[in-house]
């Protein structure tokens, strides 16, 4: 079963990647004042149980995929 983990920089944490992209978008003339760059992890969890897929995704997100000092995450199953 597919579980997707979305990792975003926490509010207030400097995001040099997002700043660089925002600068380029502004240079192209787009009306974009803020860009925050995160990460997406698509996990194929070896189960047919949505609750188990979510449990595995949450555990890997908290332990490995995100560092909660600087990042927040959400999990989408299915």
């Amino acid at each position, binding site marked *: 079963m597919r579980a997707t983990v979305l990792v975003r920089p926490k509010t207030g*944490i400097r995001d*040099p*990647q997002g700043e660089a992209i925002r600068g380029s978008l502004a240079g192209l003339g787009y009306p974009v004042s803020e860009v925050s760059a995160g990460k997406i992890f698509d996990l194929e969890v070896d189960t047919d149980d949505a609750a188990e897929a979510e449990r595995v995704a949450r555990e890997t997100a908290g332990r490995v*995929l995100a560092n909660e*000092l600087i990042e927040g995450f959400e999990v989408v199953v299915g």
Partner: protein
Amino acid sequence: MITFLGSLDDRDAQRAVEVVGGEAVPLWHGEADLKGVDAVLLPGGFSYGDHLRCGALARFTPIMAAVADFAAQGGPVLGICNGFQILCEAGLLPGVLTPNHTRRFICRDVDLVVQAASPWLGDRPVGASITVPIKHGDGAWYHPDAGLAELEANGQILLRYAEEVNGATDRIACVTNAAGNVCGLMPHPEHAVDPLLGSIDGRLLVRRLAAA
């Protein structure tokens, strides 16, 4: 002296230990065996290609479990650059390393100011300045405001950059754990041990390992 997949300063670190009179024992990330060493050094580099976050994957290698046990027993552990990143990700040191706010890789000598007396800094008094090179793209140490004053009060903040360099919280360059036996920094003391290359201030930190 641990070699991870992607370590690149392990040979320099080995030589630095020998310059200050120690014997460097090569250790391999895939073995949970410290071979009876008296001190552990995690060198700089780009373990696991810096994928995910710097140090985030190396922290799960077999040897890191042995390093955690060694640190818990009070053994001296020094992490330099990528080694510092690994120790932070492993939770053996406070904070985390994030991309330089300058968005550039920085490679140059920096002046560091001693913030607290520590065996890691020999007899250098608070306020003294030392010169050690940095070379990193993800060297901005970050720690939330909560708990920062406690680190300072505990004497866990050993060195600050003399001037703004990479965006680190409060210009902090070097921290220890609460017990003081685990130390990490982004600057490279192992590159500052030979007069031929300028400063020899790096010997201070490496000497603690050799003396163990």
